[in-house]
């Protein structure tokens, strides 16, 4: 029985270009208080364009209706559980949004004098310090714009570290369970990729690792907890093996929400890591960004951090230090996604040390509860204990002709966003479920009921699941057609 949703009228809406009429406008500029300049005269006629052909022309009320109607075609955390594994879709506190919009922060120009930027610099410094404590690292940079960008920053630091010793090395080891960004990042940084097979527990196989490692290996990129939601129980040994061959350990901290306050990567031997502020530290995903990728390092990598670095001068004022001869250089203009930094710090201030740990433990509880409830119906991928997410295989359902992607689409009818589908690739037809700590038990129970109900539907009426969704505004979308004949912009018919 579907208990979370009922059918509803949904507004149709054209594209902005289709609803435009000449001369319509939604703006009013102030009257110009200086003489108007003739564009052709000032710029040269050859440099001035005609009108922007077919550009939108709509009124203010049409604009707000247009985007409000589009918004109702979306699903967000504000509407319900968003159980995407590895994505940490937790509640986005609105105080974070409010403080990021305070004028003195939102209107701070990156080139305004340092004497008039002490407040923004202090915020960056305080967040760096808090993340050092949470990660167990010696230094943190907040410059990278996203998780993958943080990975790139980290691997470039590893390369510079080895170059400083005279040999950049050639290979980065990546477990077969890794996020796709890991091998893509290492390739962008000029490394060859060597895959490491997981063992029967879904963990890095220490024997396979030892067999893969030699003097050409610069680093291992490891995710912990890994992408099957399991803590790498040999992590300390893995780090020791890497270090014994002079290699570095990079930790993908996408799953840091499982560790905050209970374990610190720096303590178990990781040399460099990133954490996505838009996952663990609650800044909104916004339909795919903006994010921020904080990168933490142990002291031996600190000289290689992106320039500039914050320093306190003799008078106790903050200043940016560009004199960093061993730095990999900047990875982004200015100092990072400051607006995201503000939001993440607001989250940490709200929780405090105890609150952050409590959040972690609640995330573990929610994931393990879901695992227990669903285990009779779906095949758990690995028997090892789950951390903040649980990963099932669709093997029982696939035997009846229904795959993880179909189950995901049927969940939409029950009012939930699907879990992460078919990842990690080492699991047959993965259902990767991460509830986060902010889901109330009532919502989690509805979610579990939905998946149990779907498993029964597969027995009784598999067509119902194979053709889902049935109740959403938009039924199944033809992705094959989109790729075969790409239409990626509107054109006037």
């Amino acid at each position: 029985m579907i208990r979370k949703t009922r059918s509803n009228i949904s507004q149709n809406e054209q594209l902005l270009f289709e609803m435009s009429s000449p001369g319509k406008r939604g703006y009013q500029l102030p009257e110009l208080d200086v003489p108007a300049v003739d564009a052709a005269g000032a710029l040269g006629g050859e440099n001035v364009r005609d009108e922007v052909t077919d550009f939108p022309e709509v009124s203010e009320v049409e604009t707000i209706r247009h985007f409000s109607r589009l918004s109702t075609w979306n699903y967000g955390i504000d509407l319900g559980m968003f159980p995407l594994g590895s994505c940490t879709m937790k509640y986005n506190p609105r105080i974070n949004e409010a403080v990021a919009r305070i004028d003195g922060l939102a209107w701070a120009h990156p080139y305004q004098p340092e004497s008039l930027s002490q407040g923004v610099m202090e915020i960056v410094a305080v967040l760096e310090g808090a993340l050092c404590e949470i990660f167990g690292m010696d230094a943190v940079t907040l410059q990278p714009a996203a998780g993958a960008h943080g990975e790139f920053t980290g691997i470039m630091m590893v390369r510079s570290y080895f170059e400083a010793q005279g040999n950049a090395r050639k290979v980065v080891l990546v477990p077969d369970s890794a996020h796709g960004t890991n091998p893509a990042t290492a390739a962008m940084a000029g490394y060859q990729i060597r895959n490491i097979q997981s063992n029967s527990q879904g963990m890095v196989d220490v024997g396979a690792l030892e067999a893969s490692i030699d003097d050409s290996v610069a680093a291992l990129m490891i995710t912990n907890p890994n992408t099957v939601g399991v803590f790498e129980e040999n992590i300390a040994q893995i780090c020791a093996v890497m270090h014994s061959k002079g290699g570095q350990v990079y930790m993908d901290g996408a799953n840091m929400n499982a560790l905050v306050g209970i374990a610190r990567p720096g303590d178990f031997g990781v040399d460099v890591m990133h954490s996505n502020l838009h996952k663990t530290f609650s800044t909104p995903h916004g339909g795919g960004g903006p994010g921020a990728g904080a990168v933490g390092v142990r002291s031996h990598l600190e000289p290689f951090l992106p320039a500039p670095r914050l320093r306190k001068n003799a008078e106790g004022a903050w200043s940016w230090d560009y004199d960093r001869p061993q730095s990999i250089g900047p990875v982004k203009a200015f100092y990072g996604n400051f607006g995201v930094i503000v939001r993440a710090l607001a989250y940490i201030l709200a929780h405090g040390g105890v609150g952050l740990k409590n959040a972690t433990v609640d995330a573990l509880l929610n994931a393990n509860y879901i695992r227990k409830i669903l285990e009779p119906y779906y095949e758990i991928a690995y028997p090892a204990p789950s951390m903040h997410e649980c990963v099932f295989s669709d093997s029982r359902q696939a035997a009846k002709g229904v795959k993880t992607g179909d189950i995901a689409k049927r969940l939409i009818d029950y009012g939930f966003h699907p879990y992460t589908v078919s990842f990690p690739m080492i699991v047959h037809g993965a259902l990767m479920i991460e509830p986060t700590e902010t889901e109330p038990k009532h919502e989690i129970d509805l979610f579990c009921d939905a998946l149990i109900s779907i498993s029964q539907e597969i027995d009784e009426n598999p067509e119902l699941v194979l053709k889902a969704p049935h109740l959403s505004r938009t039924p199944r979308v033809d992705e094959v057609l989109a790729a075969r004949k790409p239409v990626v912009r509107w054109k006037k018919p």
Partner: protein
Amino acid sequence: MLSVCGLDSLEQLYAHLPEETKLNRPLALDPGKSEYEIYDYFKARAAENADGYASFLGAGVYSHYRPVLCDVIASRGEFLTSYTPYQAEMAQGTLTSIFEFQTMICQLTGMEVANASMYDGSTAVPEAAMMAMRITGREHIVVASSVHPEYRQVLGTYARNGRWDIDTFGYDAQSGRLNLAELEAKIGERTACVIVQSPNFFGVVEQIPAAAALAHKHGALLVVVFTEAVSLALLEPPREADIVVGELQSFAISPSYGGPFAGVMATKEKFMRQIPGRLVGETKDANGNRAFCLTLSTREQHIRREKATSNICTNQALIALTATVFLSVYGKEGLRELALQNLSKAHYLSAGLKRKFDGPFFNEFVVECGGKTPEAVNSALLEKQIVGGLPLGRFYPELADCVLLCATEMSKRAEMDLVRGTLEA
């Protein structure tokens, strides 16, 4: 819930972690604060900045008015708290708005395909260089020194690690425009692309057709960068370019001490399969209605892993949405009027000042400070609650006596008179 899990205590949830990996003390962070205390903390920090000052800083980050609707829409939970639209059936709102965004970026840049956004303008530059290298199979980049210095630094960071070569060419001392002779001398048969910016870092409008002709003569691509997106409403778009990348901060994105902003990449249709990042395409749903979804994802890291066009994953969807609302609010006429106001204000500000370059400019220009240092000029302005222009010596030692001044529609005549008076005095 614990009993369902067969546990007696919360600690048992992580009891299986090896002892040596556990943190056996509380995090050394202050106790949690109330909403009021958090707001108070950030208000106090905000008060330590240049709050309430008039500013004539541009240099890649511009003070434009942000129509109220932009935040009203971007604050809607359905947009704010949604995820990357992999599940098209639940994300038609985001997907439709990105399709409109891609279309408007094409209309503004004169290109045929635009992606769903990049991190920012600076990181879009090395992504464009990598794309040009994939297309041409060459590994040499020629970049104008009048491209934003921080963008060039980021390009340098990526290049050092990717092992590609970069050559820089200069500007004409009189006009501030590209030194085309030097450009031609640096292009060779190994050159993948030439990268120029217009308006350039000095605010000067560049000769794009001439740069394109030179690049194409040698089989290289032309990459055109923009930092001031409002200029696109008035300036001839860089149609001769092969790739256009730029920064959309001017479209209602707060300066926010340098981020988050949104970059964009646009190109010709024939290069569509080499573009990095997300693309939204039109398709149909099972009822035959128009629908949208992410497409051509076989370029991307989650499918292709180490063979992907880029490692980019998260982009700037909410910022791109804000820009889309901005463009809808202003529309065809409003955007042009906005650009004309910027042009007019900047020309008013420049009147009587000693401009370093005589090339045409949009809303930024370089001024010589005469006998004074840029620092002395700016100190005098700060006393009048005005943040002056950017002293250029930090990036261009030969321009150590110059500042880069910017005026926008938000610059008031009385404040511009104060700046002029201070520089002329």
